């Protein structure tokens, strides 16, 4: 029972996975990486739900729906724990990135990602 073309959703899911993976590899700030993991998760969920919507039946396949609901809850738990770990790293070392990456960037001569100035409250 095809009433719309859902291949668009598959492509969008693949795009979300790729965008999330790019941000995970290219940025080094903790929060950006955590956001990137969440976006990747959303992309994977979109692929799963699209396949469940493509099944030939009166209703979409409920098993991937249950798996995605479980996945959403598990991913917020992982995000919460990762945020607390990031805050602990920042409180202990003062940096907002992992320390071995700092050494790598110093090796290549690039600027390390810490700043001593207070963050200015920007106007929206």
């Amino acid at each position, binding site marked *: 029972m095809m009433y719309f073309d859902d291949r668009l959703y598959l492509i969008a899911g693949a795009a979300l996975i790729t965008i999330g993976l790019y941000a995970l590899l290219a940025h080094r700030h903790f929060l950006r990486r955590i956001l990137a993991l969440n976006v990747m998760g959303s992309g994977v969920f979109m692929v799963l739900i*699209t396949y469940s919507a493509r099944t030939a039946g009166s209703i979409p396949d409920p098993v991937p729906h*249950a798996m995605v609901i479980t996945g959403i809850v598990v991913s917020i738990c992982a995000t919460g724990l990762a945020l607390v770990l990031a805050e602990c790293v920042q409180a202990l*070392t003062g940096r907002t990135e992992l320390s071995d990456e700092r050494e790598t960037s110093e090796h290549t001569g690039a600027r390390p990602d810490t700043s001593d100035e207070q963050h200015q409250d920007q106007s929206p």
Partner: protein
Amino acid sequence: MLYLFDLVLLVVIVLLAWRSLNDADLFRGTVSFIALGLLIAVAWVRLRAPDVALAEAAVGSGLTGALILSALVRMRRRGRDAPRPNHAGGAIPRRLIGVLLLALFLCLCGAMLRLAQWPEGLTETALAELPASGVSNPVTAVLLNYRSYDTLLEVAVLLLAIVGVWSLRRAEWPGDVRESYPLLMPLLRIVLPTLVLAAAYVLWIGTSKPGGAFQGGALAGGAFVLMLLGGFGRRALRHRYRMRVALSCGLLVFIAASVGTMLLTGEILRYPAGFAGHWILAIEAAALISIACTLGLLYLGGRPEEAGDGTPVNRSVNGSKNGSMGR
């Protein structure tokens, strides 16, 4: 006509995802992420997945965004946040990553579009057993009857997350805003009871319509977060056993149900015939309390303890003043 709507929605989703991850300002990026979550919830509705849409709008967008925003504010308050994106490259140059990921994207699209056109799926199997499962919503039947073992482990993951967070640091309480924002109190007086009622309703209706324990727990978790923002609950949270009982009651009830079913019917989590609906509702009710408390306490980001004289502790990890000077 709906095809056009799908196209526009997905283009906006992809662009918003790019903006939220690559924005120079992390605050703007996080707000874009929250908006992205809401648009993805619309996509779930389009894909005929209303249960997932409820969970995504409440948990995936709202609560995750609130967690990240509160962590961002706390990290900035510590003054070490770099306001610019790090263009200083790492060990692998960005262009190479970009090219490789473009190739990955094309391979993913090709692989996905080649998979089965109209897969068989488990719809007929799920629907065939639905009358005996005790509920009439197939997703709830999958979550709490066919694959209830997975849900047991998921509730355990919730408890693990809060155990991890509590072992790592003490909570920093948000400042008491009741005096500086007097309009917050009337809103909380209206919204908090309504949210609790809505959570109970979503739990109850989940047996026959889209809903369930996780969606209701997310609503109640949102109420918990609002309560924390309004400055309530400090004394209640510091009580020694209350929070621990609330956090673990979901898992404990689930384990008790597993043992009970094993004794009654000989198989783990095989509900006695005719009473499956009652067992499911009991497990879901306990899980809702646990989910709400876990999500609210994840927002708090630490153990709610006092410094010994009852005043809230506003510093985070013990004594790292030397370390925060940078090494």
